[in-house]
Structure formats: C-alpha cells, structure tokens
C-alpha cells in the first residue's frame, strides 16, 4: 500500500513534468548544454535534473534540406558488409567527397543514420547501426569536418530501405545515410 501511494505521488510528479516535457520536444525547444554521457565524462548529466533538460537534448534542429548534389555528393548512402562497420569500395570516395564539402562549408550540418539488416536482436542492432554511423563520423572528423557539424542516430533494423527478406534486400539495408540539415544559425525552412 505504501508502495502504491508512492507510485501515485510519482504519478503526480510525472503528470506535472509531462507538460514541460511535451512542450520541450517541439521544434522551438531550447538547447540546454550537452547532457550526453561520454567516456571521458562518465555519469554525466545528473545535473540535467528536470524533464525539460532531458527532453531538449543538445542536438539542435533536425530539419532536413536537399544539400549539395554535384558529382559524388549526390550519393548519400554508404553500404556495409554483414557484421561489419568498415567503410569499403565506393563508400570511401563518397565519404571523402562529403568530408571535403563539409570542411569547406563549416556551417553545414549532417545527420548520419546507421542501419542494419533485420537479423538478430533489435536493440543489439541499434548498437551495430551506431557503430556504422560512428565509422562514417570518424572518417569525416579525420578529414577535417568538425564535431559540431555531425549528429548520429542508429535506427538499427527499424527503417529498412528494402522490405525484402533475402540477401539482396539485406545488402541494401546495411547502410549509413548522410542527411543534410539546415545550417547552424539559419532559420528553419519547411521543405
């Protein structure tokens, strides 16, 4: 019974917090400082002590734009082998082209979306997709792009490009998509 009362009290708190949180994840959300845990900063973000902070994130607008289309820049997808996060073949050139463009256009931002095929456990696949997005991120950083230009997300097996269930479909789904976003400091525009 005591437990139940505690849950009711928690529920009341959460209801109050929900108003803040739902408001804060809209497009006009403020940008609190990073609460991300990192290797050098274990256990970060205990100071992010309210829902609005946790909700806002530090990653800014995710509004997509068409971005550059010249030559290899029109190619936005990097493919991977099974169980691998190694950038290979044409992917190396595609990443290099985007690195060159992004380092010359330092206001331009991208979101790297890691994906896997459907095999295996869903959340573990989120980890594998993240590993692919990180491989592309590291390659971009090594070639002069700055950290603030890049956000990463892993969709794991949740957003297949090809809905099939064979090796041909899986090969298309093991990928990182490079998505161009509205440049920093610019107002958002609807596509």
């Amino acid at each position, binding site marked *: 019974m005591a437990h139940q009362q505690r*849950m009711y009290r928690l529920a009341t708190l959460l209801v109050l917090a929900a108003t803040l*949180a739902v408001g804060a994840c809209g497009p006009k959300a403020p940008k609190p400082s990073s609460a*991300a845990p990192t290797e050098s900063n274990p*256990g970060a973000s205990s100071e992010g002590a309210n829902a609005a902070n946790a909700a806002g994130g530090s*990653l800014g607008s995710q509004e997509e734009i068409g971005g550059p289309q010249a030559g290899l820049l029109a190619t936005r997808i990097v493919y991977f082998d099974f169980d691998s996060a190694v950038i290979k073949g044409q992917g190396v050139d595609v990443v290099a082209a985007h690195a060159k463009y992004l380092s010359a256009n330092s206001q331009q931002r991208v*979101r790297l979306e890691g994906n896997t095929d459907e095999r295996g456990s869903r*959340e573990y696949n*989120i980890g594998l997709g993240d590993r692919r997005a990180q491989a592309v991120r590291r390659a971009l950083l090594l070639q002069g792009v700055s950290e603030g230009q890049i956000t990463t997300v892993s969709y794991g097996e*949740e957003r297949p490009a090809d809905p099939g269930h064979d090796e041909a479909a899986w090969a298309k789904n093991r990928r990182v998509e490079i998505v161009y976003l509205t440049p920093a400091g610019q107002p958002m525009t609807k596509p």
Partner: protein
Amino acid sequence: MRAQATLNNWRPWPALSLVLAILIGAGAAQAVHAALQIEITSGVRDPIPIAVVPFAAAAGAGGGLDVAGVVQHDLEGSGRFKALPRERQPASPTRAEAINAADWKGAGSDYVVVGRVAALENGTMAVDFDLVNTLTGVRLATQRFTGPPGALRNAAHRVSDAVYQKILGVRGAFATRIAYVSVDGAPPAQHYQLIVADADGENPHLILDSRFPIMSPAWSPDGQWLAYVSFESKLSGVYVQLVRTGERRLVSARAGINGAPAWSPDGRKLALTLGGSSGNPDIYVLDLTSQSLTRLTDDPAIDTEAEWAPDGRSLYFTSDRAGSPQIYQVSASGGHPRRITFEGNYNARPRVSADGTELAMVTLDGGNYRIAVQDLATGAVRSLSHGRLDESPSFAPNGATLIYSQREGGRGSLATISVDGLTGLRLKAQQGVICDPAWGPFGT
C-alpha cells in the same frame, strides 16, 4: 480513491482516445484497430476436456459479450484444454447446483464451468462462476468478479485465470496485457504504432502513432506505465507513458543511443542504454525521481538490452566484449560483469522469468535466430522456437509462456510458446508487421 482502485482492478480505458488525440494529434481519432487473429500452432497431446456453458445474463447485463465464449477461447488457446462444442452440451445450467455431473461426464468433459452476469444496483457488473469436477461431482471453485460494465472482458479473463489455476496449479495469465509495435507501409513511408491489447490480442488500444520507429516497450512493475523508445524527433528518445491516460514524459534524449529501457522491480529506476556522441553504448541506471544517472558498465563494446533480476540486485545484459554477443550479469551497484551464456556465438536480449530461475534469449542456431531458455542454476540451454528470424522474447508473468516476434514469408507476427515447448499460438495482424512484444504484469 476507492473508484480509482476499482478502475485499476479492471483496467478500463476511460478517455484514453481523447487524451491521445490531444497528445499526438488528429491521427488518434481514427484509432480503430482490428484485433489480432489467433491460430493454435501446437498443443499438448491429451488436452483436458472441459465444458464452458454460456453464462446467464440478466436483461441489460453484459452488453452482448459472450463471457463463456471468451473463457473457452482462453482455455483452448492455452493448448492445455479442449472444450466441448456448445451444440454437444447436454444441458444449459448456470449454477453448480443445476449440474448433473454424470451427464457431463458422459459427454466427455472432466470439468464444467457455469456462470452468471448481473448488473448491480450501483451500476457495476458482477460475474459469478462455478467450476465443477464431473468425475467427483465436487465444486472446485466459486468466485465473483465485479467492476464497471466496460471491463466485462477482463472479468471473463479472470474467470479463465481462476479455472486454469484450479485445474493446473499455475496462475493463468489471461487477464494480462501485451504491448507491441505495428509497422505498416512500404519504405520510406513506414508508419509505426505502439499498441496495448489484452493478452489474447483483443481490445487493442493505440498508445502512440508515429512516422518514425517506435521500439522496446517495457511495462512498469505495477502495469500502469510503459517505457519505450521513440524516434519521433528523428533521434532516439526514451519516454515513459501512463497507459490509462496517455500522459507521458521524455526521460532521456541524450546524444547518440537512448535505448532498451527496463524498469527496476520497485518501479523507481530505469536501466537504459546510452551511447553518447562518440558511440559507446553502455548500461546506465536513471533514478526516475531524482533524475540522477549512474553508469553501470564501461566497456568499448556494445553493452545493451538490460534486464533486472527479480530481486533487483543485479542486471543481465547483452555485450559483444568477447567478440560476439553474449549475456552477462552485473551487480546493480556496478563492478565486474560475469558472463552467463557460453553456447554458440550469438546470444542476446536476455529476459528473466519472474521467479528468477530461467533466462530467455535470442540465439543463433544453425543459421536461424531462435528463442532459447537457459536454466540459470544448471546452465542447460534448450531451444524453444522453430522460426528463421525469431526475436524479442518476453515472459508471461506466470513464467509458463513466452511471447516473441517471428517473420515468416515476409509477414511479421507474434507467437507464444510454453516454456516446456508443448503449446504455441500465433497472433497475426490483418495487415502490416507486428513485432517487439512485451507481456505486462499481473493485475492487482
């Protein structure tokens, strides 16, 4: 407060669609879902013969719901019972005293369930049932369930639970709920919905609707809340949502992965996977009241899919720190993890039975991803499912059955299998793919 307790008991969904409409926009208004279709895929060789006689309903009571039909469907769906078809029932008693045990024994039924639905003066409904053993003539159970009219189906499932327990000695899990994700539409225009339904797939309700992935629903121990991952901002966020009202709160939207939420047994903390901007997924514990975050693992490998042991003193998780995904256990206060699985080179997504004795997981078995169970005392592993791409196992609260997702011929459906491997069901949606099931706790 008393009204609240009654509501909790029967779990109706007052004003849910209204709140959802406010919360997630006009899409919720057209939230009409077809219930899942059930097929029995395997059952025991000699199911127990039982007869469930149509319940008497006073005028205006029951709203047309066939309570006996729900009970019969539950019991047969368990794979442990075979029901006597109604047209072969020798009589239509509605009370134990009216049962002529010899007639029912003669019709081949070892047990008979009879009952009544009545409208009480205070506007609530009462469902009474009797269970009689036809071999001995003994009345094994008589019980009444009360609640608001909208919760009659839940009362029927409670009758099933009681009958199951009396005959098999294990509490039934029919009056429980499942959460799952429905995905519809072709890439890149997929449509994702988080749905909560009765354990038999009926009574589905929309919890969240999004153009971006929703995954990993997890029930709070009291069954009031769902935690889940939503990519509705295009990045990952972990939310907790009060199921009955739709009110929700974003609890983690940090850089990188925010995933795999798991409630502590006391409901006060969430274990999470956080990746950070440089991509190092580890297990963290978030105190839901203080918001304080504690790091539990610290390894450059992928550490994810945390699951609390029932005593709350340790957690199981998936890690590929040894090169391939395996399951590890770590103290809730941190420290060095201990490896739990050793057979094969892919064991992921641990789930522990409520009594803490068995670990369910996804295992790679001769090129197929299957659901396996490991006895935590002996380490013995047995493969339970037979599909090619089975994943996301979740224990029923009675520990007798697992629900998981499977993919056959391009269709994603849910399936259940008893932990003895003898009985199974498939739950199919009429369209699209359904996946990522989570079996809720017992009601209170």
